């Protein structure tokens, strides 16, 4: 749409707490009639890979405001526990799981792209990506597509 407000979100991480901001922002943009695209790179690719998308997790070690000290948060099982707790909380609040969020994004007209360089680095084939992804693009393609858009790096 000419002259319509646009937003381009770069999703570079694969944790529940790291990828969801990108997905929610894109969805809210679409709900407000703003054109949206999400560019997945590096560990963000896990969000659009079959199989991986169903098992996104979270760990408290990287969170400086976590109530659990990193020494304890890094123990075996702590990450799984935190992920389970967060997933449970999200389903209690009726927040859709990542796969469904991506389907909603696709249905609402948001564009989903994968980063070619990151895919090469991490040895990921296009066939491994979920069907909702529109195409695999490079960084300069990203700049072409996001002309006039507000760019958000998550």
């Amino acid at each position, binding site marked *: 749409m000419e002259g319509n407000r646009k937003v381009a979100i770069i999703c570079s991480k694969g944790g529940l707490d790291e990828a969801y901001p990108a997905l*929610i922002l894109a*969805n809210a943009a679409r*709900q*407000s009639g703003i054109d949206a695209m999400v560019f997945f790179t590096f560990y963000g690719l896990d969000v659009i890979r079959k199989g991986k998308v169903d098992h996104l997790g979270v760990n408290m070690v990287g969170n400086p405001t976590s109530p659990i000290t990193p020494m304890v948060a890094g123990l075996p099982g702590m990450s799984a526990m935190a992920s389970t707790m967060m997933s449970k909380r999200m389903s209690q609040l009726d*927040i*859709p799981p990542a796969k469904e969020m991506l389907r909603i994004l696709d*249905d*609402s007209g948001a564009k989903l792209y994968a980063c070619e360089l990151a895919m090469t680095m991490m040895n990921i084939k296009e066939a491994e990506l979920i069907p909702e992804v529109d195409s695999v693009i490079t960084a300069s393609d990203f700049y072409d597509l996001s002309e006039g858009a507000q760019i958000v790096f998550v």
Partner: protein
Amino acid sequence: MHARDNVHPLDLAARLDLIDRRLDRLLDAEERLLDLIEESGPIAKEVMGVATDTLMDAEQRGWFAAGREALRVAEAAVGEPTPEESRATADAVISLLDTVQDADLLPVLDRLARTAGRRSRSAPVGPMGVLKALRDPDVQKGLGVALDLLGALGRASTGKRALTPARPARKPRPAPQPRTAPAPAPAVAVAAGTIAGIPVDDLGYLVDPCVWTEDLVPELAKAVGVDTLTDTHWTVLRFARKDWEETGKSPNLRRITLETGLDTKALYALWPVAPGKCTAKVAGIPKPTGCL
């Protein structure tokens, strides 16, 4: 020379008689006393016997030794108290007893003593065991009590030196008021215009949702850019209106998709942009809140 030297012989006789009578009385009294002693002899002996036996028994049971030690403790603890100090000590003891009774600590301590005795052979617990134990509500309650006691200890150590009389039992904290969402601000939206004669705010939502009727829908739909309304439109509009009337909140897109069974794609096809917002505008309900 006494005046009595020249006493009359008759007076002397009277006096002697008096003395005699007095002596008789004395002798009677003495006799009665002797009788009493004689009768109480055996009783006294028996009493003495019992007393001695009891005291010997007490000694064997260690009461005397204990008594001596108790006196020693009292002396060490109390020293040579002045009346004021004694009074202060007594006050402290009374206050302590009152507190223990008030706080129902006595039965708790009693149970604690018995339980602790039974559990004196608890297995050692490592750090993971601690984490596991923390999940037990009993342990959590115990921690709460221990922390309360520590807090009291801290307060006591920094509090006034003078002893206060027993404090009345602490009033239970009033149950926390259930936090209700703040009442939504009354819709004092300024009418920025009208659609079909009905005032709407600057974003296009009805200023007063209650004036909406289904007849307004075509006009409202035109205002958001839709000229023809399909059955899908009506399904969605009617659902949104009903949901707002029933729950007081405008449904967000996710709720509409879940409840009507229509998928996101279909909803995005209904309106040129922003399906959630357009639905609300045309259904005459407020703007939906939330992220989904």
